[in-house]
């Protein structure tokens, strides 16, 4: 362990001894590609031919008029192949796995987007693939489970702990400590031991680099604020990376769940309820009790339902270089409905957190200002959750009818 990857007080590599050699190898491989100019070209070429990059920056004229403040732009990560920003990281790590000569990939997944992206990459590159997913998430994201399995991956429902994202990460680590010779763990967000936070942010920076060029081309000036939802922090880091040296306010939006006072949320940086801790191999703000036991989290969106957060964002919070807010489940569903009606765009429930906050702030900005919302993914995957949230009777009829067909 040469470089341990600290961002102020956060980050590090709190590794069990058995994984130290594997991380040394990974860090070396990552250093090699970072200094190889050909690698990024290969990566961009792959992403433009396989995943619709550069993704568009869409001007949301109707929403802009609706709020009567800043001009609202949407960065369309939903138009990526597999429907979310997760593929940016996954294809990058896939190229890395090819270079390392490993033949099997494993991943955790919450919403299932990262799992689908990893299964897709594995199919394309010819790797064996196992996805760990909390039992609760398997139940709420069945369409993604279906596709992962169709893509040839084995999906393992995780029945331990809180049975959501963090528990899937623990299980993936347990697999890795047994099979690191053949296997690479494709961590899905900018968390975990060094070099993962840096590496995932590196691949996701393609979002911010494009967005900066696109808004300059369109508006001739930088945006006033940019908004991204924050689960582990990878789409936020991706967007923010483009504007780190600019006078642009970076706003991360966490899951407010049923409200901060309800205790049922995943607001690590925007509430006072989290504190620094060490788990899952790194140091960051965690939602934990006084003994250091991780607490249960809640969000309507599986992808934001996580106890920790990127150490890079924790550092930005301490430094005041980014601002963190939260949006409740109810606000999120309202923002989703409005975006559908006004723009014909379906944000993922995760992404809709960024929309909800931007909608709150847009009216108080000047019509001269522009803001960018990162639409990290598309909402089709959330059809069951959204149908319940909007309480659609025809959908229920359809499901009941379908169930009757299967029962017949």
């Amino acid at each position, binding site marked *: 362990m040469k470089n341990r990857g600290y961002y102020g007080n956060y980050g590090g590599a709190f590794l069990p001894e058995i994984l130290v050699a594997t991380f040394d190898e990974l860090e070396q491989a990552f250093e090699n590609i970072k200094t190889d100019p050909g690698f990024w070209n290969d990566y961009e070429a792959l992403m433009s031919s396989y995943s619709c990059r550069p993704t568009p920056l869409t001007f949301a004229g109707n929403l802009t008029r609706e709020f009567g403040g800043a001009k609202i732009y949407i960065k369309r990560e939903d138009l990526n192949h597999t429907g979310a920003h997760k593929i940016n990281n996954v294809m990058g790590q896939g190229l890395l796995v090819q270079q390392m000569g490993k033949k099997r990939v494993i991943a955790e997944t919450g919403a299932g987007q990262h799992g689908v992206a990893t299964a897709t990459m594995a199919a394309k590159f010819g790797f064996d693939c196992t996805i760990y997913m909390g039992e609760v998430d398997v139940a709420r994201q069945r369409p993604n489970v279906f596709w992962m399995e169709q893509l040839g991956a084995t999906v393992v429902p995780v029945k331990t702990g809180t049975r959501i994202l963090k528990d899937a990460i623990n299980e993936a680590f347990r697999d890795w400590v047994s099979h*690191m010779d053949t296997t690479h763990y494709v961590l899905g967000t900018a968390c975990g031991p060094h070099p993962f936070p840096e590496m995932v942010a590196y691949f996701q920076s393609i979002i911010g680099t494009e967005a900066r060029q696109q808004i300059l081309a369109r508006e001739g000036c930088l945006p006033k604020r940019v908004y991204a939802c924050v689960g582990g922090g990878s789409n936020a880091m991706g967007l923010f990376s483009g504007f780190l040296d600019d006078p642009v306010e970076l706003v991360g939006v966490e899951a407010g769940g049923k409200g901060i006072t309800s205790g049922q949320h995943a607001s690590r940086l925007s509430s006072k309820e989290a504190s620094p801790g060490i788990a899952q191999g790194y140091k960051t703000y965690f939602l934990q009790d006084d003994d*250091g036991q991780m607490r249960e989290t809640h969000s309507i969106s599986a992808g934001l339902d996580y106890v920790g957060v990127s150490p890079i964002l924790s550092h930005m919070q301490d430094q005041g270089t980014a601002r963190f807010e939260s949006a409740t489940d109810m606000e999120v569903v309202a923002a989703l409905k409005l975006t559908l009606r006004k723009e014909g765009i379906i944000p993922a429930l995760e992404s809709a957190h960024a929309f909800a906050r931007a909608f709150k702030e847009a009216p108080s900005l000047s019509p001269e200002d522009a803001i960018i919302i990162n639409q990290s993914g598309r909402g089709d995957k959330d059809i069951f959750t959204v149908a319940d949230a909007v309480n659609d009777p025809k959908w229920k009829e359809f499901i009941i009818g379908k169930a009757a067909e299967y029962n017949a």
Partner: protein
Amino acid sequence: MLEAYIKERRKSRDILLMTHIVMGYPSFEDSFDIVTQMVEAGVDLMELQIPFSDPMADGPVILTANQNALERGSTVQRCFEFAQAVSTRFYIPFLFMSYANILYKYGFDRFSDKMDQVNLKGAIVPDLPPEEGDDYIRAMKRNTLDPIYIFSPETSDERLAYVSSFASGFVYCMARKGVTGRETAFSEDLATYLSRCRHATALPLAVGFGVKEKADVDYLKGKADIAVIGSQTIRIVEENGVAAAGDFIHSLL
């Protein structure tokens, strides 16, 4: 001092036994009962695990025990009280085993002061490698407590030497890759690895992960100083009840 204790005890014994429990599983009363039987059956050292919500290095058996203990109200405070109770009652060395966050949250200094106060001798913290351990090591050494470090079959010779430079008491050698509670092949490879470990340090060697019956313990004689029984005691207690713990230890000797 663990090192001196182990070396002294080894003069009359081919191999020592260290066992492991999760404090508060199945209950604190049962935990006490299990410790009593184990000490009476001749165990030489014991690891007392403070349960953690996310025990990354543990397999299903110990993981489930951690969860159950937490659900039944095992807290760090109660674990310290338990440790004090057993270390007052029994004259073998007790160590803590837990994950970094438990110590970090408590404060490394305060944690080691408290360990010293309740007469614990050392700690095993699998997710706190020496590179991340400055504050921990300083706090432990200040109280002359031993931070127990871990060797793995994946550890290079160079790194064995590096890790050794921080170790005191004894070194914990993982017998294989993976998490706790799975089968281990007691083979030539293991012997070769253990001789690498032996070259890297003059400290006593403990071997754990997959040690579960007399044949395994016998295999380790002459190759290591301490055989560590982890998941298997939990399994035995789950299957045959608390009263089976003592007989199980007898069966290993």
